[in-house]
């Protein structure tokens, strides 16, 4: 009945606009439940009721008034609209070219030509033959970038070497934050919603500048094996998405999610969105795309930071010292020490020094009065050395980010605390701990979200929540003669804390800052000053705070990771006391999916010594 009514209404609408129009519309049957249609309109099954809701949060995306909730009504209205005569940018066929093409194929409607000046121009300008998914990896001193970012690059035909990919266009989807919002507000709205998500098109060189030069993130380029037809369909759908708002949610409906939807549209049946459960971490989404055999070729584009580190490291030792002296202004560019070098070595010295000066100017805010004249002198001198190519680019890492361990970790273990035996279960939805298999991750970087540790004590059959990590970020970036990054950590959550008589569960906030130094190829030593804050009724004054220190060693390799050190905290608010700890934690990596772990701590707290140890297995999904 309802269907007939709508059908009738559509016809009336058609008839009123175009009295001469006579052909009846074909019967669409159950076509509105076709997966391709649901994908094209971004419909998702409702969680609690029957029916569908589109994720598009924008009336302009629908032709039917109840299009957001009714695939059927939207299909009928669309069919009527694309069957109406007329042309030009405002016509439904020009606004929704992908829907138009799909319906025509499904219903075997005649393929009449239509002029859409804006859309046709846009397509011609983009001139796309292949599509590349670009993944911006995390950068070392910002574990917060660990989630990565993805966008799509539209590659022009590569029939000759002249086509330059820096000029290719990119499509990305991101939260459109107001520039004046604070970091806190950004975090809140980013995670819980509140920002509109927008699709934008920019040339690749601007993305390279942002991610590679400013944020120091390596880029991985995954060229997809989409056919020309699939690429055209993706673009037609991208056109439909222009200026359409999809509310942005950091964990699930984020940048990566919308791109998956775009790939699903391009190749029906791919169903990448089905892989998304609670969250879509960009690096995980890249894994799915690889697993679905959508990738033809992978290329690596090192960031400015990776390149400068490589070019400095490949200089001979005494040239490294010279480069540092020139960069800091102790030795002039045209000094005897530089000039006496043979052309090739001098060129590479000048190149590395220039890259370093540029890096420091941007990352460390070297004053322009020093950096600009020096940069100019370096380049002018370099330009007089002919026929010496720049040194080799940094090699591609052996393990790509998408080849690292999966980010969801489930652990089971058993151990002993003092005189009590326990078994422990841990769930960690994301992301990486320094003792997890390091391949594909930045060494010394750690980011954990929503980790739950539950313990079952066997002596009195007691189940206890041992710890809930809300967020934990740690960055141990080694200092070198050229770079002096800060090592730091921050975290909050709830944990068991000793009140001398009991172990109570208390919210905590912790942070720390310090330095880290390489002791060998895979070993670093770190020293951090720390602060802890705990707030709970069971504490003497309702809260307690402790300045402290954490000194340790960290070794990471693909088979084995180890961290050992001492921590000391001086609790200064309640009953003042010291808490000293000696700790060792290790992981033995069994490939990419499993890791055995062991932990040992010896603690002196309230003038009591206590030993805790635990052994177990991590599995990564």
């Amino acid at each position, binding site marked *: 009945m309802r269907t007939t009514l709508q059908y009738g209404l559509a016809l009336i609408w058609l008839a009123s606009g175009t009295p001469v129009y006579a052909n009846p519309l074909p019967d669409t049957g159950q076509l509105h439940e076709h997966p391709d249609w649901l994908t094209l309109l971004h419909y998702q099954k409702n969680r609690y009721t029957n029916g569908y809701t589109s994720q598009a949060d924008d009336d302009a995306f629908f032709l039917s008034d109840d299009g957001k909730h009714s695939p059927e009504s939207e299909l009928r209205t669309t069919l009527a609209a694309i069957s109406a005569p007329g042309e030009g940018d405002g016509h439904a066929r020009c606004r929704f070219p992908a829907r138009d093409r799909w319906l025509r194929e499904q219903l075997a409607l005649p393929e009449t030509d239509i002029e859409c000046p804006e859309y046709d121009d846009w397509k011609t300008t983009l001139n796309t033959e292949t599509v590349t998914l670009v993944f911006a990896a995390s950068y070392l001193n910002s574990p*917060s970038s660990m989630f990565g970012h993805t966008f799509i690059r539209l590659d022009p035909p590569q029939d000759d070497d002249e086509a330059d990919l820096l000029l290719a266009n990119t499509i*990305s989807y991101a939260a459109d934050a107001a520039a004046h919002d604070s970091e806190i507000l950004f975090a809140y709205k*980013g995670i819980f919603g509140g920002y509109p998500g927008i699709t934008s098109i920019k040339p690749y060189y601007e993305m390279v500048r942002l991610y590679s030069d*400013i944020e120091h993130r390596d880029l991985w380029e995954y060229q997809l094996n989409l056919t020309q037809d699939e690429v055209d369909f993706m673009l037609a759908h991208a056109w439909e998405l222009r200026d359409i708002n999809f509310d942005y949610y950091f964990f699930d409906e984020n940048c990566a999610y919308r791109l998956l939807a775009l790939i699903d549209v391009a190749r029906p049946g791919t169903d990448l969105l089905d892989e998304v459960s609670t969250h879509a971490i960009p690096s995980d989404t890249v894994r799915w795309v690889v697993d679905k055999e959508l990738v033809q070729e992978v290329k690596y584009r090192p960031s400015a930071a990776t390149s400068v580190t490589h070019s400095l490291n490949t200089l001979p030792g005494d040239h490294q010292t010279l480069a540092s002296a020139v960069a800091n202004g102790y030795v002039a560019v045209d000094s005897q020490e530089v000039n006496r070098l043979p052309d090739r070595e001098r060129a590479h010295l000048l190149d590395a020094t220039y890259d370093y000066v540029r890096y420091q100017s941007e990352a460390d805010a070297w004053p322009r009065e020093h950096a600009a004249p020096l940069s100019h002198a370096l380049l002018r001198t370099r330009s007089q050395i002919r026929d010496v190519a720049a040194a080799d680019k940094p090699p591609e890492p052996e393990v790509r980010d998408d080849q690292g361990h999966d980010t969801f970790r489930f652990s089971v273990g058993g151990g002993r605390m003092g005189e009590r035996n326990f078994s422990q279960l841990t769930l960690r939805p994301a992301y990486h701990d320094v003792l997890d298999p390091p391949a594909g991750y930045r060494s010394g970087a750690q980011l954990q979200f929503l980790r739950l540790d539950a313990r079952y004590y066997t002596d009195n059959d007691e189940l206890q929540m041992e710890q809930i990590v809300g967020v934990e970020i740690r960055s141990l970036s080694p200092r070198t003669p050229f770079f002096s990054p800060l090592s730091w950590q921050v975290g909050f959550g709830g944990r068991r804390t000793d009140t001398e008589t009991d172990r109570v569960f208390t919210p905590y906030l912790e942070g720390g800052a310090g330095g880290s130094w390489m002791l060998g190829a895979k070993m670093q030593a770190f020293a951090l000053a720390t602060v802890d804050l705990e707030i709970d009724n069971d504490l003497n004054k309702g809260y307690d705070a402790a300045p402290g220190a954490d000194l340790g060693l960290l070794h990471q390799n693909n088979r084995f990771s180890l961290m050992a050190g001492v921590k000391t905290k001086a609790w200064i608010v309640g009953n003042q006391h010291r808490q000293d700890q000696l700790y060792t934690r290790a992981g033995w990596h069994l490939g990419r999916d499993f890791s055995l772990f062991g932990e040992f701590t010896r603690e002196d707290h309230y003038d009591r010594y206590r030993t805790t140890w635990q052994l177990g297995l991590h599995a990564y999904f």
Partner: protein
Amino acid sequence: MKKLIAGAILLGASSMAFAQPGCGVGAMIWKGQSGIAPHVLAATTNGTFGNQTFGMTTGTLGCQTNQSVQSMAMYMDSNIDKVARDMSRGSGENLDTLAVLLGVDEADRDSFRQILQDNFATIFPNSETTSGEAVDAIVALLEKDQILSKYVAA
């Protein structure tokens, strides 16, 4: 390739005012990135700041009538540091991009790279050089060259 050039022109025209010969100064070299340092949480949540547009509008650019030179000017405006670097080395992808934008044939690429490297000090006379001045200097240089002058003809 022609289409690609057109693409670069269109995109730039929509998003920024840029340097062209006689039409403004453009970006100063080594000006730094002040003000656009990444927000920690913006990086985390993959947000973006500032106005972004999806559509690409065609703009009338005026001034220089050679579209290729306009495109080069636009590219130089946002990549001047890297162009200068590649120019001093006589090779690199940013130099290749300039060649693509100017439509320099494969056969002429070597002399194109060489003339820019040899004349680095003319194109970037000091550390206050702007992209507009550099473009002017490149055009003047190429115009004097028998083979390369055809790529910058108005």
